[in-house]
């Protein structure tokens, strides 16, 4: 009897130690998986860049990817840009009117668009439209052994399947971002002028005064990184897809989620870096809207 009572605290101590040991093991397991995953994506990216430089792409391989990524994304990107511009006008107007600065609405709409919202929202939309489709397509090819078939015929799947998509995203996502910027600027102006009644001369004069080429190029520069991130993350998920319909679905979902997170992280760090560069180039700083 007494031995049973004495062993209870010991058991409790063992349970607590065991519980902590399991949690430490779980954290360790997660860390190893994460490092292995990052290493895997890095190697995959290096192989893609290696094949991009090693062998010229065939036109008949490249064109379908460009069509899928560029041409088919044009309507949705134009629509996204147009609505961002109009929504910015709707949301900013009340605040600017309260300050009596409604004629400066153009500068804040266009500055937000070309520096931040155009590139980020276009990339987010493309991560959903293009990234998920790429992951699902490559995942299906993995599950149905089409990627194995490519390898068995002595062809490199990275060269045939990843490089065209990577090039497509790298070249066309910045192009689509320009389109989103243009449509956003147009949408913001049309709403401000036609609905809010802001004079077009002041709208454009203020826009020109507060935005320079650097602001525009900053957004485009960021979109190159977003394009590369979407292509590499999505293709990697497709390539390493689990078996079955569930595996393909998970690859498509993860491709979007991971691309989106990477876009946000890249946006933060590129934003900080480019702001520092802008301060260096233009030490007097940007003109105040007020």
């Amino acid at each position, binding site marked *: 009897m007494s031995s049973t009572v004495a062993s209870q605290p010991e058991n409790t101590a063992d*349970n607590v130690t065991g519980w902590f040991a399991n949690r430490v093991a779980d954290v360790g397991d997660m860390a190893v998986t994460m490092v292995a995953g990052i290493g895997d994506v890095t190697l995959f990216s290096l192989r893609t860049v290696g094949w991009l430089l090693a062998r010229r792409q065939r036109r008949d391989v490249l064109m379908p990817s460009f069509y899928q990524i560029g041409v088919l994304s044009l309507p949705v990107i134009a629509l996204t840009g147009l609505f961002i511009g109009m929504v910015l006008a709707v949301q900013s107007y009340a605040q600017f009117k309260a300050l009596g600065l409604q004629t400066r609405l153009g500068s804040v709409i266009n500055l937000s668009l070309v520096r931040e919202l155009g590139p980020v929202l276009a990339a987010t939309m493309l991560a959903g439209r293009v990234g998920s489709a790429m992951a699902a397509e490559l995942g299906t090819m993995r599950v*149905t052994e*089409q990627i194995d078939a490519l390898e*068995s015929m*002595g*062809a*490199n799947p990275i060269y045939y399947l990843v490089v065209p998509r990577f090039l497509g995203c790298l070249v066309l996502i910045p192009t689509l971002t320009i389109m989103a910027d243009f449509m956003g600027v147009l949408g913001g102006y049309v709403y401000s002028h036609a609905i809010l009644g802001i004079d077009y001369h002041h709208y454009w004069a203020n826009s020109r005064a507060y935005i320079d080429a650097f602001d525009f190029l900053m957004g485009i520069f960021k979109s190159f990184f977003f394009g590369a991130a979407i292509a590499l993350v999505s293709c990697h998920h497709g390539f390493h897809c689990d078996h079955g319909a569930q595996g393909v679905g998970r690859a498509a979902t993860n491709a979007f989620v991971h691309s989106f997170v990477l876009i946000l992280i890249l946006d933060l760090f590129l934003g900080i870096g480019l702001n520092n560069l802008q301060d260096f180039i233009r030490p007097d700083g940007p003109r105040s809207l007020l």
Partner: protein
Amino acid sequence: MNAPVIEASPQKAMPTVPLLFIDSLSVSFGNQHVLRNVSLELTSGETLVILGESGCGKTVLLKTMIGLIKPSIGDVRFEDTSLASMTERQLAHLRTRYGFVFQGAALFDSATIADNIAFPLREHTQLDEDEITKIVTELVAEVGLPRVVLSKKPVELSGGMRKRAGLARALALDPHLVLYDEPTTGLDPIMSDVINELILRVHQRPETTNVVVTHDMTTAHKVADRIIMLYPLSRLKENESQIIFTGTPEELDISTDPRVRQFTEGKAGQRLNELREEQIENQSIFSANANDQENDHE
């Protein structure tokens, strides 16, 4: 059919060296062990059939022969050159001497049948489009497909047609070694026999070696020069060989090994009970793990 011109002509097999030698091969995926200490020699010109029940590692063995799956332990040697020692480029070049017929054909969805069959020719030869079209047309005729399929996408074809198109693609570079992964699975008996006839025709090509993975006894008897039977690792004892039979089709018929007999006669025997016991065992392990997790949370 005109043999296409490969960029760098590979050497012919030396008669004294086996075409393919698998040396003490083991393959594992994480904690799942699929193949253990499998050794096998493949002579040029023979047709080897690999038999075995589902999940015993037949396809894994086939894919290690072409380097699509890397061995955990052991080596695969093609004409005395280890696949593991080859660079990516050397392995890609070696694969022009292989043809692989996949279980589901694995034709590229986005391409037409003509483009599928022409793919290896465009990738590895300097032939112009007219010559490629001529070879593709001949290959399609050889596997008994009408010319009209050339412009169709794989999804528009029946299972048997897709398998034959897959075979045509595998034969495009006049391979020395053709690997078939369950070529008759999912086909009606007549179409299965058509595929068997095609395998025999491929066998008649000079210096062509076939490896056929199947669990179809009719196919095995019809096409095999030699048969090996693999047994699932999970049901083997520690020191037992995973290859439980090697011999001719005639020797297979008179084998006294109860495991071989059970497979060739297609009798479940105690298998259903074993599967139920395995299921119960898995469930109790699952419950024990769930209880452990619950205790952890408490």
